[in-house]
Structures are given as structure tokens and as C-alpha cells.
């Protein structure tokens, strides 16, 4: 295997592959519960780095625990409780907010065993390389596993987030 890896030459393909990140998680909850957890600030505060996020057909707005704007974007698709697509700009960091807007798609697919698949596609990241590396891996992974913990146990993964509500 190691010899194989060292001779491996990346093929030249268009960049759209790397400008897309996909995350999927199984959550034992109803589509409506997951939908509420994604779109209502009283839930997002408890798993999304403390951010109070409101998503409506009119727009996407995110505020940090100190009340500063963390995100403000258009909602491109609105199909409760299945699918919502919104713009993404990381306003909490000046370097990131200078980058082009990217796009986040949430898809909720019920399974027949009482669980749902929640898929997050963060794409159009071509013009936002720093945002891409910021949300990659541990970023979305942490948010989604905290969301799963919240919905399945009622407990936020990071107790400090709950404390910030008080």
C-alpha cells in the first residue's frame, strides 16, 4: 500500500469536486424535530457554537452569543420539513467575510426505522477557500454530532452553550 500511495499522481479534474463538502448523519428524530432544530434559534444556540440562527422563507440570519451578526444570507429553497438551501458567509471573521458567498443545503430524508438521514452539502466554495477549510472536517462534524446529541438525548454536547442562554 505505501508504495502505491507514493506513486500516486493526482488526476487533473475540474475544481468543483473540492469546492463541495458533504456530511451525512443518522438522527433518531422526526423530520419536523430536525427541521425545527435547524431553523429555530432556541435550538441552534445549543449546538451551533452558541449561534442563534433563524431560517425563514425570507432569509437566513445568525447571531453570536454576544449579539453580533455571524451570518446574513438569502434563502434559496424552502421546503419544510425536507429541504432548505441558504447562502453562507462567515461574518464572525473579517478574513472569511471578505470571501465570496457559498451555499449550504440541508436535506432531511426519513428512513423506515424511525431515524432520519440529515445531509449537509456546503458547496460553491470556489471563491471561499478559507471558509472551506474553516468549516471542513471538525467544523461541520462538530455541529452535526452536537445536533444529533441534542435531539437524541435532549442534552447539548457542550454544556457551555446552554449556559450562554441564561
Amino acid at each position, binding site marked *: 500500500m505505501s508504495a502505491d500511495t507514493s506513486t500516486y499522481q493526482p488526476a487533473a479534474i475540474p475544481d468543483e469536486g473540492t469546492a463541495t463538502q458533504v456530511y451525512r448523519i443518522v438522527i433518531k428524530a422526526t423530520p419536523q424535530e430536525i427541521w425545527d432544530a435547524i431553523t429555530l434559534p432556541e435550538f441552534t444556540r445549543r449546538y451551533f457554537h452558541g449561534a442563534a440562527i433563524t431560517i425563514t422563507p425570507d432569509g437566513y440570519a445568525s447571531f453570536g452569543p454576544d449579539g453580533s451578526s455571524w451570518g446574513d444570507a438569502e434563502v434559496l429553497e424552502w421546503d419544510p420539513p425536507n429541504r432548505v438551501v441558504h447562502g453562507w458567509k462567515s461574518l464572525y471573521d473579517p478574513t472569511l467575510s471578505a470571501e465570496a458567498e457559498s451555499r449550504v443545503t440541508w436535506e432531511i430524508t426519513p428512513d423506515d426505522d424511525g431515524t432520519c*438521514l440529515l445531509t449537509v452539502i456546503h458547496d460553491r466554495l470556489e471563491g471561499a477557500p478559507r471558509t472551506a477549510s474553516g468549516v471542513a472536517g471538525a467544523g461541520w462534524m462538530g455541529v452535526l*454530532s452536537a445536533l*444529533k446529541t441534542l435531539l437524541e438525548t435532549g442534552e447539548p454536547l457542550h454544556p457551555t452553550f446552554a449556559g450562554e442562554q441564561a
Partner: protein
Amino acid sequence: MAEDDDAVFRALADPSRRRLLDLLFERDGRTLGELEEQFAMSRFGVMKHVRVLEEAGLVVTRKDGRSTRHFLNPIPIQLVADRWVDKYRDERVTALVDLKTALESRQEPRS
């Protein structure tokens, strides 16, 4: 894809499948053809491995025009690690790891 630790462990227990994940880690969103050309085995063989990874939730496919792109989904590995690593990460184990690190670092020449 159901939540299934066994499926994740089974998927990771094969060197070709770990290599597929490494290839996607290196550059995500490859087509089957792009994955296949990195292997000496048949297209069918690679497909079979990709299928096992998909069933374990480690690979998610998306349609992109006429092609299907494959994306690495790291979440099942993270969840398995959370369940298993956290369980054994107690003080005894931590003490042993610290001891190992301390002993092994002594092999480095001291300046």
C-alpha cells in the same frame, strides 16, 4: 444507511477501502472512473468496495450533471471514536499513554 458500528468497522477493515477514503480525503468529489484509475483491480472490484463504504455511510454520492461524485463523510468515524475512545479514555489509560510518550521522547537526543 443505518447507524451501524459493525458496518463502519467492517468497511475500515480493508486496505483498499481505506485507500479509497484516503484518495477522497486528498481530493473529494471524485467520480468512480477517477477512483478506479488509482487501482489495479477491476472496475467491478472498486465498485464493490465503494458500495461497502456507502452502506457504512463513509461515502456519500451526489449527482453532478451526468456524473456521480463521491464524497468522504467523516461523521461515522467520528461517532465511533466518540463512543469507543471516550469510553476507554480514563485516567489509567491516559497515564499509560503519558508514560509511553515520556519514555519514547527520551530516545531523542537531548540538547
